[in-house]
């Protein structure tokens, strides 16, 4: 029942953007709206966990624990972004970079983008799942190319073309799945709930080929390694709040899609096929991300590559197969979404104050913007998996299970690559955050709403580590269901 409101509110907000004249009012309405969405999604998730079964309405909406979890992530990040964008858009408008019309278009696109991201996890039909993801690409293409500079248009173009090619391969995979399903003689339907019970009798060979197409297709959208090329361009050129949404949530929705098909393949062909493929792609993305992070010069591209790294960790987590690793990967999705958007908010503040992306010429951030500087410092340590923060928990879970199932090579390379990336991060951010205040730069604060966005995420980053111990049973249940183990 909550799902209708969750989908309804963004549509309502999209239409409302034209009513409010003043920018502030529009932002506030947006924030309130998404706060409601957050509460609803928490209620929905609790209800699913309580019912221990999926909720579905007229075969069209299908909500099981996995989609409930993803809706929760999307709503948290969306709420934080809406809070942050009040301040950010306001500041941009004062500096004259954004005319009135553009600001209104921003809110429209923002709501449509969130709508499509809520739509994807809640739909049952795999074809509609594909349509949902295609919609996210198209809408976010505008948001990437928002500033109409040469770079952002180029980034938008690459984003659209590469993702559309990827998604078409995903469609090919979906068709193959429906074909293998139709071969079993049952009624022709693409509903996920119908395919899963009968998955074990599907033709093994077609399932394998179909899953490769799905993996390459949705992997492009998820930013897995060889197909990640669009990600750094798109995330670095989009406006800060949107790149937080892109990195935090959009990548995860495509991982959700891969998981949906993954469950069918696990049932049909057995786990090792799914696991090896995911680990392979995960390791490749970790290696490539660590290489690029080491020699990166642009701040937002650095964060984009770190998203590729974390997507790599998540796919390794799912690929390992132990229930603990799956729990770790699920948690990592949530923690990374929260931490990465915190980092993108900070990066947004820095870039808008220093007016440039190049990290070598950004100095003394802690001196010029104490609040953002401190948040960024804590964010860097959080992102690299230092204990008081949440990502440490999920990484430790993945490493434990990597060692426990005996794949020392994967675990060893994971550890080494993570520390290389940590070294690179500290090297970049150390030079940027500390150091003498450059001439002619005075101490600047951030708009209050911006601070609220930060604080909300920071509290989440710190305390959600503890949350793992409380929700241990439920998460293990989701993991078991995911792996059918």
């Amino acid at each position, binding site marked *: 029942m909550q799902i209708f409101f969750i989908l309804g509110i963004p549509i309502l907000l999209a239409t409302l953007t034209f009513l409010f004249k003043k920018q502030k009012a529009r932002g506030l309405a947006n924030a309130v709206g998404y706060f409601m969405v957050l509460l609803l999604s928490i209620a929905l998730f609790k209800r699913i966990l309580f019912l221990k079964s999926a909720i579905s309405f007229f075969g069209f909406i299908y909500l099981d624990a996995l989609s409930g979890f993803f809706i929760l992530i999307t709503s948290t990040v969306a709420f934080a972004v809406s809070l942050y964008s009040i301040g950010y858009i306001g500041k941009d408008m004062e500096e004259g970079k954004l005319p009135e019309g553009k600001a209104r278009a921003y809110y429209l696109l923002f709501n449509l983008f969130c709508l499509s991201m809520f739509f994807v996890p809640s739909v049952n039909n795999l074809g509609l799942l594909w349509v949902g993801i295609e919609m996210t690409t198209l809408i976010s293409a505008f948001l990437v190319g928002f500033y109409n500079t040469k770079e952002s248009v180029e980034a938008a*173009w*690459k984003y659209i*073309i*590469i993702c559309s*090619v*990827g998604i078409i*391969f995903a469609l090919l995979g979906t068709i193959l799945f429906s074909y293998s399903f139709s071969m079993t003689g049952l009624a022709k339907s693409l509903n996920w709930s119908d395919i899963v019970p009968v998955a074990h009798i599907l033709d093994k060979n077609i399932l*394998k*080929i179909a899953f*490769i*197409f799905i*993996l*390459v297709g949705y992997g492009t959208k998820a930013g897995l390694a*060889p*197909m990640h*090329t*669009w990600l*750094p361009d798109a995330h670095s050129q989009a406006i800060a709040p949107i790149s937080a949404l892109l990195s935090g949530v959009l990548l995860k929705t495509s991982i959700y899609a891969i998981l949906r098909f993954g469950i069918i393949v696990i049932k049909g062909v057995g786990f*090792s*096929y799914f696991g*090896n*493929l995911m680990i392979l792609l995960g390791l490749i993305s970790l290696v*490539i991300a*660590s*290489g*690029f992070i*080491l*020699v990166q010069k642009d701040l937002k591209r650095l964060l984009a590559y770190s998203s590729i790294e974390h997507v790599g960790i998540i796919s390794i987590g799912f690929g390992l197969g132990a229930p603990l690793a799956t729990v770790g990967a699920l948690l990592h999705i949530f923690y990374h979404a929260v931490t990465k958007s915190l980092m993108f908010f900070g990066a947004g503040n820095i870039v808008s104050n220093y007016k440039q992306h190049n990290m070598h010429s950004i100095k*003394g951030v*802690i*001196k010029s913007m104490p609040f953002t500087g401190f948040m960024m410092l804590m964010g860097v*340590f959080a992102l*690299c998996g*230092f*204990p*008081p923060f949440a990502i*440490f928990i999920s990484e*430790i879970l993945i*490493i*434990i299970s*990597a*060692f*426990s199932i*005996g794949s020392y090579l994967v*675990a*060893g390379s994971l*550890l*080494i690559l*993570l*520390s*290389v990336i940590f*070294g690179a991060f*500290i*090297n970049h951010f*150390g*030079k940027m*955050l*500390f*150091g*003498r205040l450059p001439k002619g730069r005075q101490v600047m604060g951030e708009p209050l709403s911006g601070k609220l966005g930060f604080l909300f995420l920071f509290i989440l980053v710190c305390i959600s580590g503890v949350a793992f111990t409380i929700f241990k049973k439920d998460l293990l249940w989701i993991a078991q269901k995911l792996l059918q183990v």
Partner: protein
Amino acid sequence: MISLLTKQLFLFDPLALFFLAVIFVVSLPSAVYSIGYLKNSYSPKKIFFSWIILCAFLLSMALVVSTRNLIIFLVAWEIMSLVSYLFVIFDTTHEKSIQAGMIYIVMTHLGTVFIIAAFMILRNYAHSFDILAIKTACSVIPRTEKNIIFLLFLIGFGTKAGIVPLHIWLPYAHPQAPSHVSSIMSGAMIKTAIYGIIRFVVFILGASYSWWGILVLIIAVTSCLVGVIYALMEHDIKRLLAYHSVENIGIILLGVGLAMYFISINKQYLAVFSLIAGLYHLINHAIFKGLLFLCAGSVYKATGTRDIEKLGGLIKRMPQTAIYFLVGSMAISALPPLNGFVSEWLTLQAFFLGALQVTGGMKLFLGITAAMLALTSGLAAACFVKAFGITFLAEPRSHYALNAKEVSLSMKIGMFILSLLTICFGLAAAIIIKFLAKAAGAATGIEISSLKFSLNNFVLSTNGGLAGAGSNSYLSVPLLAFMLIMLAIAGFGFYVFGRKRAEIYKTWDCGYYKTDSRNEYTATAFSKPFRIAFSFFLLPYRRTQKIRESFYHVKSFSYETHTTQVFKKYIYNPALTLIFRSAKLMRRIQPGSIHLYLGYIFVILISLLMFMQKF
């Protein structure tokens, strides 16, 4: 519920209690010291912030040392590095402190990665993160796995302890932190790494193979020698002390390595004896190194510079700091009445006793290691004559030293407490040995009630419990101190009896002109013989230049010399350039052309389809 929680999470055996004592023995005086030290050199907001971090730092160290669960150990370990990183970059504007902080946190994190790997392999066998459960499960681990785990622990904890090949971060990180924090870092933080080695290698893995002990001994000896030679060449007082930390960690590891070796050839008494020597030097080093860092901090606060070439004559301007620094230097150079001498004497005795019980080839090895230890203490004495002499004695060499004033009261109290502890730990050696014996017994799991290490509360005896060993050798520090003082007083009596008043006149200057501070011997000159003697390792660089006004008139003469950092130049820099060059190579994957990107997708699709059967 609380008691259940504490019993389940914490393990307060004598070893953990000992390390807790070490941590708090160093941190309380440093905290008192920091009141004065931070007063007017940092903004009140920053001082408040530093107090929070200090508490977090102490808490995390205490947690590391007393926890029973490996995950909590890891969490506390990482928080400890994170918090000490915040201290290293405390005054954020200096370029050097940022670079130091970066090297420090990256190397410690690399060390932690090795520790995590070792923990996980252990967990595979014990299926739980509890130390005692792992200890019981250790017997089932095959030989190769045990060796791998040992090496992982050695590298992991070695990085944090600062043993030689991994010591690069220590001379950078310690000097940049505020002095009271450097004293805690040197005194207590690197000791948690030693705790890690003792707890996980000696206690859990049981030091079961003899090549482990020998490897630790070799590493320890190299750490001693390298640390002290580099300290001799150093002119920044805090970097000098940081290099000495590397040296003293070497000495501590000598004791621990010896204990590991004796456990592997199950000589119970000798193992406990050498572990006692190691632990004793550990707490002594925590005290006198803490004291030295605090004195260096007050010198820095009074003069504003850390370069001893610019200091001099501070003994007249800062008499109390000078005394405390003298006590600290005497302790670190192992001079008799103080605690450094006792622990070094014990370590050497452990070597000699061990040599009696060991087969041929090993006797020679122990002999040469003991000789290297003696060489280290000789060089340390030379280094601290240089440090104390050049900084405090004779005439001030620059305006920094000229207008130095004595530091505030709270700083003096901090230093006084630590120097008092240095003396007490020296004199009360026999009593302290009894507590250490309990801790060593707990660590090695050997029953120590039957063994006797000291006759009564004054005299240390070496082979109390050893049947058939040669006759005993004794050391009574209080008696020694008493004799020294009595003879000094007797001498003073002769000295004062009927002597004419002493005449004050200027130093002998061969009758030419009045000597000023430029005639004094500088630190570079003092360490020149050592630079030449150890040139095979230091590879010194020397350039002299005559700056001429005209062809005939030489305006001034410049002399420049420095030694090359061998480890940095031949191990770390090549590794870094390799990584960065390969990363630059990888950058070419993303040249910008969209067609190439589409090509990537096509290639990965086709290759996956072709190799589909392999998955």
